[in-house]
């Protein structure tokens, strides 16, 4: 297990969802977690990286890491 995996407090599985589903699923979860929580988003959608980068830049939540699993990616976001 990498360091990032250990830091994920909650996982949102949006593999197979089309845009903007994964980002919306992540945002939905962010509403209910405490500040400092790291949420892992699983997505296989190509647009997620761009959407998520833009969203985290605008919102001030931190995109901690992206891990490529081949057929899908894990995005780790820390709520500010």
């Amino acid at each position, binding site marked *: 297990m990498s360091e990032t995996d250990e830091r994920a407090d909650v996982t949102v599985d949006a593999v197979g969802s*089309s*845009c*903007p589903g994964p*980002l*919306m699923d992540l*945002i939905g979860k*962010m*509403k209910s977690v405490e500040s400092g929580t790291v949420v892992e988003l699983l997505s296989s959608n190509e647009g997620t990286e761009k*959407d998520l980068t*833009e*969203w985290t830049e*605008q*919102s*001030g939540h931190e995109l901690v890491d992206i891990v490529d699993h081949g057929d899908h990616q894990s995005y780790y976001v820390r709520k*500010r």
Partner: protein
Amino acid sequence: MTERIVIVGAGTGGIVLANNLAEELATEIDAGDIEVQLVNDGEDHVYKPTWLYVPFGEKTLADATRPLVDLVDDRIDLTIDRVDGVDTDDKTVSLAGAGVDESYDHLVLAMGAQVTPEETPGLAEGGHHFYGPEGAAALRDELAEFTEGHLVVSVVGVPHMCPVAPLEFALMADAWFRDRGLREDVDITYTYPIGRAHGIESVAEWAGPLMDDRDVEVETFFNAERVDPDTKTIHTVEGRELDYDLLVAIPPHDGSDLVREAGLGDDGWVDVDPNTLEARGADDVYALGDVADLPTSKAGSAAHYAAGALADRLASIARGERPTAEYDGKTVCFIESGTDEATYIAFDYEESPTPKPPSKLIHWSKLGYNRSYWLTARGVL
């Protein structure tokens, strides 16, 4: 043995399916070989698109409803009751009022989507919506009194019924205040959760400049976390705050607990094959319309076209033939872009939509369609 098809929900999808089946299977139903039961938790059929016009005083709540008995073919066994359980092993549904379990050979879930404003703290108290009859009527009264200030139209939940209704509401409000000579005293802001004005890219590209022209402020990446009704402020997940005088929100939506409890979809939407509409979690179960987790919009037209394809499939299956009809994702949405002009988009699983230039003709077509909708529900159109 009589084959039983049970349909839960007599909204756009359920009623079009039932009436199409009545026609396609008339001979078999008359002979007693097939029964089609349609269960709905109220006596009326509701045409929800009417609610968009209620706040502007252009339609009444009564315009949105007709008694189901007037719309459903006599060959269909219409049952007014609420289904409160689905057992896909026993192949039964339980009727809450009658307290009985009904068996099925083929089950179609068409319960639509539910709005859940209470999911966002403060929203139910601090905001209005036009996504239900009481909400639309309360908003009509509020708008009638609203002569100046900041109107915020905020999309809180995605996905929601009718992808374009929030844009339509903002554009109609702009035109409505202009017509009444109040527009200079009213600021309008439209907010959307992702980084553009709409989920469908071509619609966002079309809407952006139009909103600019109409002096409607657009805020993107705006996700309401809570609403403070006392200070009339929306607080977002992005850490922003927006003050409003009148908040019109598109509330979060939810599928159905029945779906979750029956193991047909964790989030309340039925996980289905998008072409055959067959549930992935059980045999002989199908889902139609908003309750189905389909890669298209939660729109009445999508429910209508899907119902046509499913009627063909079910009729073939009930007759012991191999079904060949499939739903290709066809969806058509009219978009009101003021009080006297409109455009539309048409798309399917393969084709992306391109909005046409708005015109009065399309506006009249939308109003005409709204009137002729009752023929669609009867299965005539």
